[in-house]
């Protein structure tokens, strides 16, 4: 069904492409897949229509957030040495255990474990489904990020958001279906984290930059007014119509002409859609907008809500870096305060608008962190990377909220219960969006490729 697009088919892509495609769909009628962004139904009933993926880049520590390990209190500062050719320089050598600097309590009716730093999230704990069984393969940031985002450690493959749009199309013709809200600094590995990979460019993630022009070159250079542009566009239209008369069989020409008109409209409309200032003060306060610690991520969460309301299929918001090798108390403390209120607000806000049940929220990093730390310049209370254990949580459409699934060992070194590779998480996410990973394939470089690479299993425990 979603297979084998002709590699040289011309694509309309990016913002609002399907508006344009309506106008000349008859020209392309021989190929049903030629309206790549038009909304389509998935393989099964969708539990969620859209996804907000909160990407805590850098690797948040499960041990210091949602997976308490009291045994580390006893082991605190005990030293040991580890040597293994499977380990990186970071994980070997003289090491010592580190206890969490945070206190924990159980919150909500479900009694979910949470460090006391999460003051706001505790109030919506019963909406969350914690998962402690996931394992990844890579201990290196960019490769682990690529793995979580694209299913392939090496980058160059399509991101989940690209797959979701490939499978489901966009519900809003005037906006991209896959929007990324990066930090001011792009993460390691850069824009490949939201790449369309080998899927047509239509499905590329559009990064809305937090400063400056949200979309590059959305506006003309200074001094050029809208009238001025309109005059130029009118001339362009005239020349292009004459050219079309000379090349009546050339099918791309009309499409390219419409994209200019569409771009001109979008130039006007997009800034309004992206502007959160129009929201009422109570809503802005709810997300922590205006407070130094929460303003940046609060804006992203509020914008994410606005975007899914507008029909955007997949929004990924970045926050980081959670890479706390030292002084984790201070570092993670700040990071949690940055996101705690905005995330809780997002869940509450979606819920009161009746949108939570049709929106899937994912919170995770690229790996978890180790119960121990290496001796570098003296003792530092931080943690290294750990691909064998992490915590992620889900909320919203179709997830088993109010539960904690899976478990790690006594010190949080390794997942031991309901253990799944990240590919199974991918399969499960697609399932919640109504897509079957084994049928959501694209022919490239000699085979039909899929997000999970070679197939995976759903994790039934996570499903409501």
């Amino acid at each position, binding site marked *: 069904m979603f297979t084998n697009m002709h590699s040289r088919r*011309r694509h309309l*892509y990016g*913002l609002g492409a399907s508006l344009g495609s309506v106008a000349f769909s008859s020209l392309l009628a021989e190929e049903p897949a030629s309206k790549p962004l038009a909304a389509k139904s998935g393989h099964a009933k969708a539990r969620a229509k859209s996804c907000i993926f909160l990407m805590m880049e850098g690797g948040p520590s499960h041990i210091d957030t949602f997976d308490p390990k009291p045994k580390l209190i006893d082991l605190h500062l005990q030293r040991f040495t580890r040597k293994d050719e499977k380990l990186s*320089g970071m994980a070997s050598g003289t090491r010592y255990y580190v206890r969490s600097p945070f206190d924990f309590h159980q919150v909500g009716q479900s009694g979910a474990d949470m460090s006391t730093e999460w003051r706001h999230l505790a109030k919506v704990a019963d909406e969350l489904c914690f998962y402690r069984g996931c394992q990844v393969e890579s201990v290196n940031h960019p490769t682990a990020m690529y793995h979580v985002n694209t299913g392939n450690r090496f980058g160059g493959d399509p991101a989940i958001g690209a797959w979701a749009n490939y499978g489901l199309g966009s519900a809003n013709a005037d906006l991209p279906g896959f929007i990324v809200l990066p930090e001011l600094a*792009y993460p390691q590995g850069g824009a490949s984290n939201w790449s369309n990979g080998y899927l047509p460019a239509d499905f590329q993630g559009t990064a809305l930059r937090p400063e400056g022009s949200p*979309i590059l*070159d959305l506006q003309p250079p200074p*001094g050029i007014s809208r009238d001025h542009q309109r005059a130029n566009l009118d001339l362009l239209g005239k020349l292009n119509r004459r050219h079309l008369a000379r090349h009546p*069989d050339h099918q*791309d020409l009309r499409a390219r002409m419409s994209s200019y008109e569409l771009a001109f409209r979008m130039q006007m409309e997009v800034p309004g859609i992206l502007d959160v200032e129009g929201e009422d003060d109570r809503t802005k306060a709810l997300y922590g907008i205006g407070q130094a610690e929460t303003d940046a991520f609060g804006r992203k969460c509020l914008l994410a809500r606005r975007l899914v309301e507008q029909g955007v299929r997949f929004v990924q918001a970045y926050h980081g870096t959670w890479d706390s090798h030292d002084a984790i108390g201070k570092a993670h403390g700040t990071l949690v305060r940055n996101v705690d209120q905005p995330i809780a607000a997002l869940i509450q806000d979606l819920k009161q608008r009746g949108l939570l049940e049709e929106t899937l929220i994912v919170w995770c990093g690229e790996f978890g962190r180790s119960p121990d730390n290496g001796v570098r310049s003296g003792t530092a209370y931080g943690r290294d990377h750990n691909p064998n254990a992490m915590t992620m949580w889900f909320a919203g459409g179709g997830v088993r909220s109010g539960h904690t699934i899976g478990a790690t060992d006594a010190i949080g070194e390794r997942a031991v219960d309901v253990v799944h590779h990240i590919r199974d998480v991918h399969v499960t996410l697609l399932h919640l969006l109504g897509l079957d990973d084994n049928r959501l394939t694209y022919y490239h470089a000699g085979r039909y490729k899929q997000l999970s690479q070679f197939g995976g299993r759903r994790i039934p425990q996570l499903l409501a």
Partner: protein
Amino acid sequence: MRRSAMLFLITLGGCLLGRAEEGVPMQTSGGLSERWTERLYRAEDVWAYRPLQSPAIPAPVAADHPVDAFILARQAAAGVKPAPRADRRTLIRRVTYSLTGLPPSEEAVRAFVNDPDGDQRAFERVVDRLLESPHYGEQMARHWLDVVRYADSSGFANDFERPNAWRYRDYVVRAFNRDKPYDVFVREQIAGDELHPGDVESLIATGFLRMGPWEQTAMSVPKITRQWFLDDVTDSVGQVFLGHALQCARCHDHKFDPVPTRDYYAIQAVFATTQFAEPKTAWLPDENREGFDESEHLEARIKRYQKILSDIHAKQVSAAKQWYATRGLPYTPRKDALRKGIPEEEIVPARHGLAPRDLGMERIGRKTIARHQWERDRYQPYAFAVYSGHTRKIGVVSGRLKVPQDRTDGSLEETAILTGGDPFSPGEPVRPAVLSAVSGVPVTPIPSTVAGRRAAFAEWLTQDEHPLTTRVMVNRLWSWHFGQGLAGNPNNLGATGKKPTHPALLDWLARAFVREGWSVKALTRLLLTSQAYQRSTQHPQPSIVADRGPHGTLYAVFPPRRLTAEELRDSMLFHSGELNPSLGGIPVRPDINREAALQPRMIMGTYAPAYQPNPERHRRHRRSLYALKLRGLRDPFMEVFNQPGPDKSCEIRETSLGTPQVFSLFNGEEIHDRALGLAHRLIEEGGDDEVVLERLISRLFHRVIEPEERRDLLKHWEVMEARHETLTFAPRVIPIEVSRQAKEEVTGETFTFIEELESLRAYESDRQPHEADARTRALADICLVLFNSNAFAYVY
């Protein structure tokens, strides 16, 4: 009875494996299971392994050209007549872009249009002239570098620059310009160091083997990163030369092709002694060494960061001295104190006296200096290359690698079939070998010695009868000029790739290619002088053609194509008269969208340096082929116009449409600069408005201005000039520093710092609106519209 039982078994096996129930067996080195080894293939799925045929040129069709004989025969069979020949103005634009990636000059158009010779003779002369243009090599290199995934950086966490990769890029340009026989070209890239020790050109060629993204950091597991390279090079050799994605056989025998996993590791064993190094060589006489003086900016930058580090160090020492003094203790640097075993409470705490900003800057300074020091190699004749040797234990790679004195230092890698592709699960050992399913070529034994494996493999690969090497390249050349391959997936001639539409033609061309001494130019000339290449894009009966030969596979009409990203930019520079046509050299940094240039991006422990365009106009205005290609920072203009990312081999470019392209081409500052440049040039050349417009249309579209067009353009000019009389433009401010806000890794605290953009102090702006009068600016509006027009963007 026995026979039917056997048939039953075959059928059953076929069902289980999802394979042909009837078909042909293939001789291979053997799969992991007998069932795989003995499975049958549909003959049409293994066509590419079969020996090259020697097809006769179809006789019954009246054709002067062998290519046309094959093409017309199929058209006749489909009941389709070809489109007429394109007119000369169309043809010269088509062929000039095809061979050079640039538009034809006015003189070239005039000469061809007025050539009294017959169409064919006159066109052949144009082809011959273009094949001798130095820009021919650049255009072919652009295609080749897509396939091999050329980039100037290593990707992943650090995205370190590969300061000498450009020498490989220029090697490719030279190879095509000199018409290096393709078999030699292949051998040099795979084994140049082994075949011609001491030859610099051959050594540079081996950079091919290292084109994939790769890095080794403190967080890497060396055995895994080594395996990345081995997997990458095996698959890359497969896709680039053999037309097979070999990675499919990494974990299991190939599901569709006769490629056992044993072959995958046997080919991998060919590269098991291939080691990275950047040895120093002599410069080659043809290497462009212009622009090395830019190193002054690099040195200034290194010095500035060294000063930052020494200031922080001084601050820390002074704070430590004070700490000891207030406690009445003697000053001992922390490192020394720890070594001496002084009790912890009597040692100054780590990082004492340093604010989060200092900590952040210390890290940024250290990392920045290290990467810039490596970048100094850009101006030195090191070769991004390999040698054959044992595998040594290498830790973090953040600088140039040397060839060791003793190449047998370390251990000789023993290649084995890796269970599930996991380097920690070696299974059955394998010896180096070739792809076993290939027939018609004598099997060359590959030695298991340290050196000579690649040389022997390259010899096997480049035998005259090699069915894959020859078909793959001939098919690529066809696809570069006709827009699609005779076999539709140039990187995949296997079962899942598109089947050849003209298999006999493909083989005939492969034979002709070898007969002409593997000459790429000779084959290109053959393809381009065919009538098939010279057809109009308009057919009198388009619906019949589309019906009987979907996707243009009958070649009854020529397919129009959009200019590539590079061609768009280079053409605008060409028309504005700003293009610097010199060849080769260190990567240049043209203007890119300024927000993207200054976009902070994370690398390990810090931020990548901002992108600073070359301050000198003539360096910014080089061809796009020479633009610095960073895996971590793509030029947004190139990206939206479908320049492929350099992580995966690109067999053929995609062409998409959409609003990001409009934003880039209609709003982008660089495009407005080109439009103003062109307007300025036209005005400088003199003449009244009508003359100026005639010249403009003639140059951009190679035709005479039409009366209606003249009227519209004159009117627009007049209206826009009146508008511009009321507008004032401020000089553009080029930022010479950028403020960075960052979270310090250790404390999570936010701090800001200023990154100086030292080279931009000397930035020579392109002509700006405030320097131009209203008439010129209004003409620039027309130029902008024309750059955006479909007539400009497409080649017919």
